[in-house]
Every structure is written in structure tokens, then in C-alpha cells.
């Protein structure tokens, strides 16, 4: 199993994000974890990379990989990055954990040419079933937390995300979806069949 295969198993949105970023880009990964996506981008696509993570153990792993990383909390914003100082800023499956995610998104748009945001879709048919028939907040492999101990503050549906983008004038330039259903179903009814959506926002 290659490193990429392993990451795809643990982080399903990685391939889509990796594919979206062209060679030689300057990339900032918010909540970069152990830095493995940035390592791939640096080694295979010759990108100039910078990570941010709040967890010391993860920061340590980045240092071991030689990935430049800043240990800080994303809730503090990105004020010290200059306008358009990155080609791409990534926020991978972390959006829902940010206190004021739309403000962070404004900041991401300011500091980069493209922002890539991946989100869980709570409108996915299985989670809908859990709420509708089970009458409980969805708990599954990807959202393993109970409602009372979850770090996820802002779970929404793909429709919710698109509505926010419209309201706050974020330009979605492309969308990729991860799903176990056919492409036809997923693309016709994304809010029902996509498990994870990866939005590229330009601006």
C-alpha cells in the first residue's frame, strides 16, 4: 500500500484535493495534521508548502518530515498572511470545527487565489435516515462522536454550504464529491448522495 493509498483510506478527501493543486503551487494547509498531504505536494508536485496545526504531537511529526508548520489555533485568524500570498489554501474537513468558519473563509479568500474546502454532507441519505428513523444525531465512521462530545460545531449539508457561499458571495469554481453511489445519482442529487464535498472557491 502506498502512502497515498493509506491516506485515502483514512482521509477520503485527500486525493481530490491533491488532484486539484497544480505543480509548483504555493500551498497553505490549515489544520495540516501530520503534514502528509503537504509532504506529497512538496515531493511529488514540487509545491512550496506551509502548514498550520494546533496540536503539538502533529507539529512534531511535521518537523520530522521537514514540513514548515506553525502551531496556532485557527480561531485566531490569518491576519498575518498578506493578501494573495498563496496559490492555494486548504481547509480539509476542519471547517465544521472552526468557531466562525465563514470569517475564516473570508480570510482564506483574501490570502490565496484558490481556497479548497472539504465538508461532510449531513444531507447524505444515511445520516438523514439516522435522524429521521432513529431520531438521533448521526454517528458513523466519519462522524464518530456523540452529540455531546463532538468537536464539530457547524455540521451542515451540501445545500447549506452552497447557500452560505451565495449569501456571503463566495465564488465556487468547482465541486468534487465523494460518494458510494453512481456518478449520475451523486451529480443529480448531490445533497442526498454525496458523503463529502470538496469545493474550490476562487477570489
Amino acid at each position, binding site marked *: 500500500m502506498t502512502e497515498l493509498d493509506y491516506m485515502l483510506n483514512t482521509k477520503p478527501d485527500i486525493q481530490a484535493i491533491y488532484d486539484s493543486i497544480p505543480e509548483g503551487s504555493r500551498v497553505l494547509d490549515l489544520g495540516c495534521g501530520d503534514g502528509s498531504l503537504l509532504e506529497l505536494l512538496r515531493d511529488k508536485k514540487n509545491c512550496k508548502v506551509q502548514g498550520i496545526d494546533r496540536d503539538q504531537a502533529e507539529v512534531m511529526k511535521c518537523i520530522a518530515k521537514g514540513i514548515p*508548520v506553525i*502551531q496556532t489555533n485557527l480561531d485566531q485568524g490569518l491576519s498575518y498572511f498578506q493578501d494573495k500570498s498563496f496559490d492555494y489554501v486548504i481547509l480539509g474537513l476542519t471547517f465544521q470545527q472552526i468557531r466562525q468558519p465563514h470569517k475564516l473563509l473570508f480570510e482564506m479568500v483574501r490570502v490565496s487565489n484558490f481556497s479548497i474546502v472539504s465538508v461532510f454532507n449531513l444531507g447524505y441519505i444515511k445520516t438523514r435516515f439516522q435522524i429521521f428513523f432513529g431520531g438521533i444525531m448521526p454517528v458513523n465512521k466519519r462522524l464518530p462522536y456523540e452529540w455531546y462530545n463532538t468537536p464539530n460545531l457547524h455540521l451542515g449539508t451540501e445545500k447549506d454550504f452552497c447557500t452560505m457561499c451565495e449569501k456571503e458571495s463566495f465564488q465556487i469554481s468547482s465541486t468534487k464529491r465523494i460518494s458510494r453511489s453512481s456518478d449520475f445519482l451523486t451529480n443529480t442529487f448531490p445533497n442526498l448522495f454525496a458523503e463529502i464535498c470538496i469545493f474550490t472557491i476562487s477570489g
Partner: protein
Amino acid sequence: MIVKPQTYTFGESESDALKLRCGSTLRNVSIEFETYGTLNEAKSNAILVCHALTGSAHAAGKHSEDDRKPGWWDSMIGPGKAFDTDKYFLVCSNILGSCYGTTGPTSINPDTNKPYNLDFPMITVADMVDTQHRLMQHLEITKWLSVAGGSLGGMQALQWAVTYPDAVHSVMPIATTPMLSPQSIAFDWVGREAVMSDSNFKNGEYTKDALPETGLSISRMLAHITYLSEAGMREKFGRRLQEMDEYNFEFTHNFQIESYLRYQGSQFVNRFDANAYLYITRAMDYFNLSMEDPEGKLENVLDKATASFLIISFSSDWLFPPYQSMEIVKALMKCRREVTYCEIESDYGHDAFLLEDDTLGDMVRNFLKTQEACY
């Protein structure tokens, strides 16, 4: 590891003398230094370690088997340690203005053949770094793999990165700041006032048998409080009493913390020179990296640096709090540099850079490994 201190002297002629930022020059400058490990043929494994306010060139190992204590960063430097002497060649030199072998106020003024005392010119962190650069040339090293240091040592590392950008591949400023805050300047002021108002001080012309002990020890006790943290003190001493079960209703030391400070103060007067203490704290007060830019912008100054940065702060350090390290990070980000920054969770306060060797060690070890690869 048994190590031997060495000395290098320069500046016998006027043209070779050390030019200081204050405008004066220093002749016959001696640098005391120690080295650990072996310089490789390519000279690509040399690391400079910079010490803090009252440190010395003796960073690791022992001078003889009978030494009670090893060097001040022995937990980090040695075979198999974070600064692995099996792989790297480490240099540590005593800073200019100190009293451990390098030229300072206790040295003999070649013009008068008497100790400088307060005739010693005012020195800066940049002057300390210039001195180290002379040593570097003497050792025929062209580029440090890394320059590392905590506190004042970290200021030197920062200064190296901007004054000699081509001579440093990477820097590790630890528990430090790009400029002294008014709070730190205030503590330094009170410390120096204590020394200078001691009746033995005599305008710096004190004698060996009548040292300004009271003033210097008060100064040290005050400084020592700033090196600890409230939580750390609570953990280490609590309100526990020293050698008594009840209060003695006198002003002698009752509490462990009092006895600890008293011990620290009394030890210090035996090992450090009062004038050197004045000069070095003053150099720290004057340290403000952003002043090197006409507009006073730190990012313009750090833009000169080409080194990779590993910046480390400690959560409970209130002398040089994490936000000050973050100022360096922010400025480097403005220059679109790659930066690694870590705020290590610790209750040890400012002193953590000497105590958190497990976490710090892992970071340093891994950082050096990746720096070696791209030297």
C-alpha cells in the same frame, strides 16, 4: 565527555580591533570557547550554541571527572543527544561583556593596564554576534548548519540570521523575543538599581573582599522570579515551610520559596561579576531587531534572513511570552518565508528552555536532520 576551554584573541592592532555599535572600539579581545564533536571535511556540520545572560562557554561535558555539574545544556549536547556530537561539531563561546573568559568589564584595559570596570564600552547583542563571527572565521567555518540559543541566546541567533545571512543555514531562537518589552526593561532597571545602590559598589570600582553582594543577590532573586511561573512555583514550593513546622514570627526565611531565592542569590554573587551583569542586561534592554529598519518594521529586517527558522516558545514563559515569538513568525510570514513555530506546553516558565529537554530535544533533533539534508 571531558572538555577543554580554549581561547582566541584578536584585535591587537587598531585595524583589527572590534568596532562596537556604540562607536567605541575594543582592542585585545579574547573569546573563551569550547567545542564538542568533530568538524567534518566539508565543514558542513558546525553548529553554534549561544548562551543566555549568565551562562558561559561551558555548554556540555565536564572539565574534569571531579566536576560536580556538567555544562549548562548538557541534557541537549553530547553523543546520541539532540545536538549529537557523533554527527555535529558544536561551538559555544562566552559572550562579549561576560566574566567567564571573554573580554568584559573585568578584563584589563590595554590603555590603562587596569580592569575596565565601568570604563568598558556599552555593548549590544550585535557586538556579541560580531565577536562570534570573528571566532567563526578563526575556526575557518563559512556557514553554520544552525545557530541555536534560548533567551538572550535566542536573540543572538536572530541577530545572526539578519547580520550574517550567508553564514547561517538555519536558526533556532528559543524562548526569546525580537525586542525587549517594557516589562523586561523594568525588571532589568530594578536589578541594576539594586546593584548600583549597594554601598560596596563604589561606581564599579569594588574590590574582591568587598563585593556589592547584597545588591547583586537582590537583583538575582528578582530575576529568578521572572524565570519561573506562578503555577511552577506553586507546584515546586507551595506554601511549605523550610526547616520548621510553624511560623517563627520573625523576618528570617520561613517559606521554602524564600529559602530557595536566598540560596539562588547567595550562590550567584560567588559566580558572577556585578559590572558584567550591568552591561549584559543593558545590551538586552537595547535589543530591538526592528530598529535596524529605518521604518522600524520587523519584516523588513527579517527579509534579509535566508535561514530556515525553528522558533520555539513556552506556554508559561511570562518574561518572553509566546506572543513575542509569534511576532517573529508573523514578520517572516509577511516576507513569505517558510517557518516552523511551536509553543511547548510547560509550567516551567522562562527556564523551560533548560528543562524541557525531552520535547525540545525531539524538535531540535528532527529539525537538524532535515536541515542537514538541504544544507
